[in-house]
C-alpha cells in the first residue's frame, strides 16, 4: 500500500492537468485512510476518508471551477528545490535511525503516558473508545483549539470570498477577467487631502 501511495505521489508531480491531480490527491487520501485502518487507527481513518478525501477534494474542485485547470510547464530547473528536499529527507532518515522499530511495544510512547489513558478511560471516563475519551477530556483543550481553527478558516474564507474586498460587485466582471490593475499610485488625491 505504501508503494501505491508513492506511485500516486509521483504521478501527481508529473501531471499537468490539475483536475486529474486533484482526483489523484483524493485517491491518495483514501489510500492513506486504508493504511490507517491497518494501523489500528479507525477513528483517524474515518476522518481522513471523510475530510481528507471528501471535503478537501470538493474544495479543490470548487476552486478549479473558479480558476483554471491547466498547469503551465515549469520554466526553471528544479535544482534548488531538489537540494532542499534531499537535505531535509536525509536529515529525517538520519533522525529516524534511532527510533524504536515499527510496532515495537517497548517504545517510549507505549510505555509512558499511554497506559494511564487506557486504565483511566475505564475508571474515570467510562467510554469504550479511548480516542474519544482522550480527545474530549484529557486533551479537550486541543479539541477546543481545533474548533477555533475551523472557525478561523471559516471566517477567513467568508472574508476573502464574500465579506468585503470590494464585495462581490467586482467579481461580476466575469470569470477569469481580472479587475483592472490599479496600483496605489496616487491616492494623495483622496478626500482627506482637501
Amino acid at each position, binding site marked *: 500500500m505504501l508503494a501505491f501511495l508513492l506511485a500516486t505521489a509521483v504521478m501527481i508531480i508529473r501531471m499537468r492537468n490539475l483536475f486529474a491531480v486533484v482526483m489523484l490527491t483524493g485517491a491518495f487520501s483514501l489510500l492513506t485512510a486504508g493504511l490507517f485502518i491497518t494501523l489500528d487507527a479507525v477513528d483517524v481513518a474515518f476522518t481522513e476518508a471523510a475530510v481528507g478525501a471528501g471535503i478537501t477534494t470538493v474544495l479543490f474542485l470548487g476552486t478549479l471551477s473558479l480558476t483554471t485547470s491547466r498547469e503551465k510547464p515549469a520554466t526553471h530547473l528544479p535544482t534548488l528545490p531538489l537540494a532542499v528536499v534531499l537535505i531535509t529527507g536525509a*536529515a*529525517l532518515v*538520519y*533522525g*529516524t*535511525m*534511532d*527510533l*524504536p522499530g515499527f510496532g515495537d511495544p517497548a*517504545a*517510549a*510512547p*507505549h*510505555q*509512558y*503516558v*499511554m497506559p*494511564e*489513558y487506557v*486504565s*483511566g478511560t475505564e475508571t*474515570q471516563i467510562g467510554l469504550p473508545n479511548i480516542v474519544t475519551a482522550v480527545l474530549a*477530556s*484529557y*486533551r*479537550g*483543550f*486541543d479539541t*477546543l*483549539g*481545533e474548533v*477555533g*481553527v475551523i*472557525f*478561523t*478558516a471559516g*471566517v*477567513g474564507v*467568508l*472574508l*476573502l470570498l464574500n*465579506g*468585503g*474586498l*470590494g*464585495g462581490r460587485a467586482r467579481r461580476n466582471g466575469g470569470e477569469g477577467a481580472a479587475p483592472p*490593475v490599479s*496600483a*496605489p499610485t496616487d*491616492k*494623495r488625491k*483622496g478626500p*482627506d*487631502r*482637501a
Partner: protein
Amino acid sequence: MIAALKAHLPILLVAVPLFAAPLCALFRHPLFAWTVSMLVTAAAFAGSLCLLAMVMAGGPLSYYLGGWAPPWGIEFRLDAVNAIILVIVAGVGAVTMAYARASVGQEISRAAQPLFYTAMLLCLAGLMGVAATGDAFNLFVFLEISSLSSYVIIAMGAERDKRALTSAYTYLMMGTIGATFYVIGIGLIYTVTGTLNMADMAARIGELEQTRTIPVAFAFILVGLALKLAMYPLHLWLPNAYTYAPTVVTAFLAATSTKVAGYASLRFIYTVFAADFAFEERTLLFLFLPLGLVAMFASSAVAIFQSDVKRLLAYSSIAQVGYMVLGVSYGNVTGLSATILHLFNHALMKGGLFLAVGCVIFRTGSHSIDAFRGLGRQMPWTMAAFVIGGLALIGLPATVGFVSKWYLVLGAFERGWWPVALLIVASSLLAVIYIWRVVEIAYLQPAPAGVAVKEAPLSLLLPCWVLILACVVFGVYADPTVTIAETAAQSLFFDPGAGLPPMDGP
C-alpha cells in the same frame, strides 16, 4: 469571585478572546465588533499584567486544563518568560485595537469589518495560547489559529493593494511548511520520550541526548519556528506581508507574532533541550551567531534602499530579529536577557513606528517614502513619534533600544567576543542611515505644492504615542523590564523543567 478569577486567569486570557470572536462574527455590526474587541483586549492586557505580577511575586504558575494533571492533560505553565510575552501581546493588542477604530474604518470596507475584528481576536487568542501553553502539541494548535487568522488579516490589505493576496499566500505556504516541520519534530520527540508536555520532555530528554533523533527533532522544531520568526534566511515571506497588510495588522503582527515565535524557540532551546546539550551549543555557535550577524547587516543594508517606508521597517524587523538570535547565540544569561528584553522593546518601537506610518497612510494614502515630503511640518506629532521610534531603533540612550543594545554588547564582552560587540554597535549605524533618510525627507524637503495634509486625528495619535512614550519610559527607567528579563533568563537558563509536578497516575 476575585480569587476564582485569579485562579483561572491563565485560561481566561486565552479563552475570552477565543469566545468573544464568534460574538463579533454573529452580530455583524462594525461598531459592536470593535467595542467587543476593544473590551476584550483591554481586559486581556489587565489580566496579563496581573499574571505577570503574580509570577514575579510567587514564581511559576501551573494550570491544569480540565483538572487533568500533566503529562496526561494539557498544562498551561507561566513563568517570567511567557508572562512578559503575554503582556506584550495583550498590550500591543489593546493599543492597536484602539487605533483600529479609525484606521480600519478607512482601510477596510464596512461589510468586512466585523469579520476582520473576529480574525484579529482569533489571532490574539492564538498568540496568547502559544505563549501560555506548556504542551508541545497544544502549541501547534494555537500556532495554527494565530497563523490562519494572520493570513486572513494580511490578505485584507487587498482592498488597497492586490499584492496583499499573494503575500498572504506566500506566508500561508511558508507558515504551513514551518508548522508541519514543527509537527514532525514533535513527532520525533514523542516517539522517543512518549510525552507531549514540554517540561516533562525536558526531564526525559536528558537520558536520550546521545541519540540521533534528538538533534534532528531539535533542528526540525527550530526550522519550523524560525520560519515563523522570520529568522534570516527564512524571512522571505515577511517584507511583502508587512508591506501590503492593513496598517493595524502590520503593527500588531510586527509587534507580537514574531515575538511569540521567538519565545517558542527560546522555550524549546532552553526548557526542552537544556542549553548545555552539546549539539545545541554547537548550533548556537556555528549557526545562530553567523545568521544573527548576517541578518543584522544584510537586512539593514537592504532596508536602506527601500522606497517604501513600510517595507523599510519590515526589513529592519528582520534585522532586529537578528539581534535576538545573536543574544541567544551567546549562550549566557546576559545574552538571553538581552534577547528577552529586545523581544519586549522591539515590540514597543516597531509597533509605535508602524502606527506612526499608519497615521501618514491615513492622511496621504501612501506609504511610499515620497509621501513623507514635508510632513515634519504638516503632521508634527506623527513625525515626532516616528523620530523617537526611529531613535529607539538606532539605540540611542533614553530609549528602549539602548537598553537592549547595552545588554547585547555586555553579553558579548562576557563571552569575550569583542569583535561581535563592535559589530553590534556598527550595525546600529545602518539603522541611523535608513531612519534618517525618512527623517530628512519629512523635515527638510518641502511638501509637494498644492496639497495640504492635516495632522492625524487624535484617535490614531494617542495609541501611537502610548507605544512611543513607552519606548521612552522603559528606556529611561529600564529597571523593571531588565529585572523581569533577567529573572526570565535565569529561569530559562538554570532550571529547565523545574517545578514539574510529581508523576503519579491521574
